[in-house]
């Protein structure tokens, strides 16, 4: 950033060796070399585990469990992918996770956008209290209410004959409990999106005789669509990745979500002495591909949502 200043200075002063080096194309490339090495090092650090999972997934078992280990498979194979996908509970887990994360996201967005409309576009007493309540919920440790949730989903009497349904070992238990970390976050971020909208459009709609709900549905919601995509994606990722509640509330393999399935994976290819690492790595590649694709595509949006959630606090 100081090159402009130095260039003008260099015309008056005798040119020093370092400045000459900095000016020649080759010299500049050489000076940039350590920088690019650092960039490459960071990228390798972030990506190497993925490469290693992929390499292990396409390496046949006969080659996988030999020393010295090979860094590139000489006979790549899809066998581990077939093996992973042939496990019925793994396929079920993909479906279960989609159902759970999808429902949680839809619920959070529906309930959250209404709340964000109130918090972002209206002035009323108690507003900042609600906002701080939501903020404190976002840093709430999930483990702190595990005991109570465990009792609740096992079915219990609310008051007298009123009964909370027994949700243990069902996907509903997860959809219910995941709202604790997706909803407050959704409300917090969507409120910041709502607040950023100009008042003119809304006023024009009111002058035209629109009701507040019409304003919400026809004017505001389309305007915060990018915000909905961002928060929806973040809520989906959080629900998709959740493990503590999933491993606590789910028992039968047919109700496993992806993290539980991966954690307890034991494919058919491994023998009694060797854990089926190739199949497990194939499974991890299968479940991470959609997430990687989503992050690469929506990187800018995700970051905007995360910083809105974090920095503005």
């Amino acid at each position: 950033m100081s090159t402009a200043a130095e260039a003008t200075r260099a015309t008056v002063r005798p040119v020093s060796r370092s400045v000459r080096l900095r000016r020649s194309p080759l010299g500049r490339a050489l000076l940039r070399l350590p920088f690019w090495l650092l960039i490459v090092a960071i990228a390798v650090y972030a990506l190497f585990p993925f490469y290693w999972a992929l390499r292990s997934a396409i390496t046949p078992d006969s080659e996988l469990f030999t020393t010295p280990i090979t860094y590139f498979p000489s006979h790549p194979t899809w066998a581990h992918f077939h093996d992973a996908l042939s496990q019925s509970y793994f396929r079920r887990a993909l479906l279960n996770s989609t159902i759970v994360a999808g429902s949680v996201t839809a619920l959070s967005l529906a309930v959250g956008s209404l709340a964000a409309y109130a918090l972002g576009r209206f002035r009323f007493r108690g507003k900042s209290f609600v906002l701080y309540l939501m903020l404190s919920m976002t840093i709430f440790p999930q483990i702190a209410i595990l005991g109570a949730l465990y009792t609740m989903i096992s079915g219990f009497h609310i008051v007298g004959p009123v009964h909370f349904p027994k949700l243990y070992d069902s996907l509903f238990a997860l959809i219910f409990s995941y709202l604790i970390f997706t909803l407050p976050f959704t409300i917090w971020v969507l409120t910041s999106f709502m607040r950023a909208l100009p008042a003119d459009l809304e006023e024009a709609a009111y002058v035209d005789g629109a009701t507040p709900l019409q304003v919400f549905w026809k004017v505001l919601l389309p305007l915060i669509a990018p915000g909905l995509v961002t928060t929806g994606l973040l809520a989906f990722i959080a629900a998709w990745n959740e493990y503590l509640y999933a491993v606590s509330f789910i028992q039968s393999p047919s109700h496993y979500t992806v993290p539980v399935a991966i954690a307890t994976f034991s494919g058919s290819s491994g023998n009694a002495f060797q854990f089926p690492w190739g199949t497990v790595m194939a499974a991890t590649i299968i479940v991470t591909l959609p997430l990687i694709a989503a992050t690469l595509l929506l990187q800018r949006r995700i970051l905007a949502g995360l910083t809105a959630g974090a920095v503005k606090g």
Partner: protein
Amino acid sequence: MSSVATPAPVPRRGRRRRRTKLQRRQTRFAWLLLVPALAVVAFVAIYPLGRTVYQSFTDQEFLAGITPTKWVGLDNYHQLIHDTIFRDTVVLTIKFTAITVSIEFLLGLTIALVVNSHFKGRGIMRAIMLVPWAIPTVVAAKMWLWMLDDTYGVINDLFVRTHLISHNQSWIVQHPLVAVSAVDIWKTAPFVALLLLAGMQVIPNDLYEAASVDGANQLQQFWRITLPLLRPAILVALIFRTLDALRVFDVFQVFFGYRLGSQSMAVYNQSVITQDGHVGYGSAVSVAIFLIISLFVVIYVTVVRVSDE
């Protein structure tokens, strides 16, 4: 942040009495919009929190019905104070937090400084950094568990080849804390970097230009401009990471299961409740964890307050 006044969406002019009436209607409407959200929060967060506290004073067991649950006062808390297993999990979790948060911060700051300069492919670089954060922790843990394998693991191979270690290590058994920290650092250091990067990008460029005109070198610019102006972002990153690290569950559970001596606070708590079925005692453990985490929040806030003055 609530000081940012929101413009009322209704036409502002009009007779005074009508305006207050309208305002009252607006307030009612706003609360109506909040009803579903507040109901959900009350039901999934506030009620369970209260119930956890209540349960911590009872001897509730998961297989209730055999013996009726009774109120036991502070018995669970007495037991907790003498629970050496729990004490070990607290120590281990705090060690884990200290290691990971400090390394993630330093590594994250370094990465952020490198990626903050202008170069082709910065967008791709940011996307790459987001990928470890986006995948499930369980998946990351499995990938690393395999990389850390004592016989066929690539980490052993790389370290032996570069003579960093003389022979293969059994990381999970010999260096459990190093192993779990490695996963956590890999997964979150790039994310910390992204948070800091967002903070760096709002620092106006003029400041650096003015500083270099005044003859400040890069290091001085870093200490005098970047670091002070980055303070809010740094604090947010540190607080969020500390809270996350203190409630760590996934990595520990995947790496060690419920092995004694290698449990984090959350793993121990979860095993007391769901494996042993001691819901009452487990709730007391939950309350203790909640208090420990709150203590860290209080410490952070106090430190920030004091250094602000």
